């Protein structure tokens, strides 16, 4: 069964042009996705990638879609900001018979690829709960939730997963009024600032945990705790496991327990072949999920060994 409703299957060509519209070019996660796609395309040999930046904006995504069509792309990998825009964007591609793979945000009629954000979140929450149960006897005084409320449902699902993963597995769930929802605005500084602001209000809390929207935000939390002299009272998990997060996990006495790995850099190696399958009429499942793994300093070498030659002796 083909995932594409309408896509008339192109007769096999020597080479293809594939459009990739990125969520934003501003953050590490999406930069890794882009780089992964580019290198996978190079590997495939017969694929040329046309790039666009959706700038976290629906109107821009729509304009980029129109642009792709004008450029006569054969297929599109669409990473955009909200399901609500899916219909209108897909209607364009459907009219042209262009096959689409949607990253992270499902779009009607597109093959879905990506994170299962909720479950990815859960992984981190569960790992954090396990650590707390083991090291702090399951006792948590405060939970800091560094969310990104302006950026819509993807981050929201990640956060919800983390919170529920934690709460469901703690011996004693954190009391509702000791859960602090903080807006990280997706920057390390803002995360530093809000956590700095909240710490004085929980002077007696000795066991503080934080779940965060990405590595940068997690690092902001740790920096704030360090600056307030309360680093040993906090433990943080995050989402992404990008290089800066990995470096932080490896540090001695790290307060960064780990992060759910999205392997953004590997997206390309799934996406490009899948797109070729679509274009050349091979069967493709309607949804491809990334296998998430909670990355911490114990298993880091297994996944990212070559990035950290000092920490990971070649076995």
């Amino acid at each position, binding site marked *: 069964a083909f995932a594409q409703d309408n896509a008339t299957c192109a007769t096999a060509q020597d080479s293809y042009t594939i459009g990739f519209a990125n969520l934003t070019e501003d953050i590490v996660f999406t930069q890794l996705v882009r780089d992964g796609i580019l290198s996978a395309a190079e590997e495939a040999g017969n694929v040329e990638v046309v790039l666009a930046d959706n700038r976290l904006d629906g109107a821009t995504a729509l304009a980029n879609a129109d*642009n792709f069509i004008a450029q006569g792309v054969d297929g599109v990998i669409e990473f955009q900001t909200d399901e609500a825009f899916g219909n209108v964007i897909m209607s364009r591609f459907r009219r042209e018979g262009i096959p689409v793979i949607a990253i992270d945000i499902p779009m009607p009629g597109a093959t879905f690829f990506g994170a299962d954000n909720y479950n990815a979140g859960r992984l981190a929450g569960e790992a954090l709960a396990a650590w707390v149960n083991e090291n702090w006897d399951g006792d948590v005084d405060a939970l800091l939730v560094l969310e990104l409320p302006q950026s819509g449902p993807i981050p929201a699902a990640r956060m919800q997963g983390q919170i529920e993963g934690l709460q469901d597995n703690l011996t004693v769930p954190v009391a509702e009024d000791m859960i602090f929802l903080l807006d990280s605005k997706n920057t390390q500084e803002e995360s530093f600032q809000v956590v700095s602001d909240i710490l004085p209000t929980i002077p007696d809390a000795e066991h503080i945990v934080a779940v965060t929207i990405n590595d940068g935000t997690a690092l902001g939390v740790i920096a704030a705790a360090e600056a307030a002299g309360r680093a040993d009272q906090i433990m943080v998990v995050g989402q992404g496991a990008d290089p800066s997060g990995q470096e932080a996990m490896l540090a001695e006495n790290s307060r960064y327990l780990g992060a759910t790995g999205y392997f953004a850099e590997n997206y390309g190696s799934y996406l490009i072949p899948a797109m070729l399958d679509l274009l050349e009429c091979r069967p493709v499942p309607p949804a491809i999920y990334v296998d998430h793994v909670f990355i911490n300093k114990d298993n880091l070498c297994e996944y990212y060994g070559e990035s950290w030659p000092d920490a990971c002796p070649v076995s």
Partner: protein
Amino acid sequence: MRSVQMRSVQEIASLVVMLVIIVVVMSAASPVFFTTRNLENTLLDITTVGILAIFTTMLMIGGGLDLSIGSTLALGGVIVGVYQEAWGILPAAGAAILVCGLVGLINGFLVTYVGINPLITTLGMLSIARGVAFVLADGLTIPVFDLQGTQTDAYTLFTQFGEGRVLGLDTPVAVMLALFVLALLVMQFTPYGRAMYAIGGNYQASNLAGLAVRRYRMIAYMLSGLSAGVACVLLTSRLYAADPRAATGMELTVITAAVLGGISLAGGKGTLIGTMLGVLILSALMNGMKLLSTSTDAQNIALGLVLLLAVGLDQIRQRNFNIMRFLRSSRLVPEVARVSPAEGSQS
């Protein structure tokens, strides 16, 4: 003087030249650039910025400034989204336009009657409107469809704002052009336009000439808000969704286009044609760079450079900046001997 009339013609001419250069370069670099399809897309894509730019230009000519248009637009969209079921889609759209107008009116009131600086007023409003949009939408993007299937006709009509065609043009493009022509006529031929130039040119003198300066200014702010309302309806209809994040930072794009087109921040100067050329130059540049898969960073850098280049060349053309004079006066070029400073001859 003859030279004065020439100035604005020259200014427009140099913008046209700039646009042509960009178009030629981009067409050479990308085969897609100069295709009907791409040009149509680009035109559709600039409608939001274009509509906002028209009214921003009128406001700026009158000596005002509005940083809150992007937020206001988002707020309007959210109102459409949130109240589409309760009020019906068309009344909700009407309400959105009114609310945007009201936001503009409040800006105008604070600037003209309370006397708060426009930058601060609209900066505060930028924050407030965006915040309210997020609160109303609860941070979510709201689909704008006929979910219940009870107002099919109304939704069909609503959809036409964004997707329909009028006189062979996409409706948003047609609306933008219509507003542009209307604004052009207003600025050239009506007392309102004349008042904007007069007030921006010399507020005090206009007041003493008996013009209702405050009322005119307030209207300009209100129109700026209303234009955000119109733009938000077109956009929401086109996207089938309302996003509290919409148009973030768009005020800067709009002001950049206006300034590129020769609008003075001090008011009293500039033309709508210049602004539109500014919008076209920016979008041709951005669209071309997109087609060439240029990174966002490079696009930002190019944007800044083009802005500086345009304004800098204009300065040099007007001989406000003379390199020889600069070198001489910065003592980098030798000069005739000086007489030693005079001894004071007065106690």
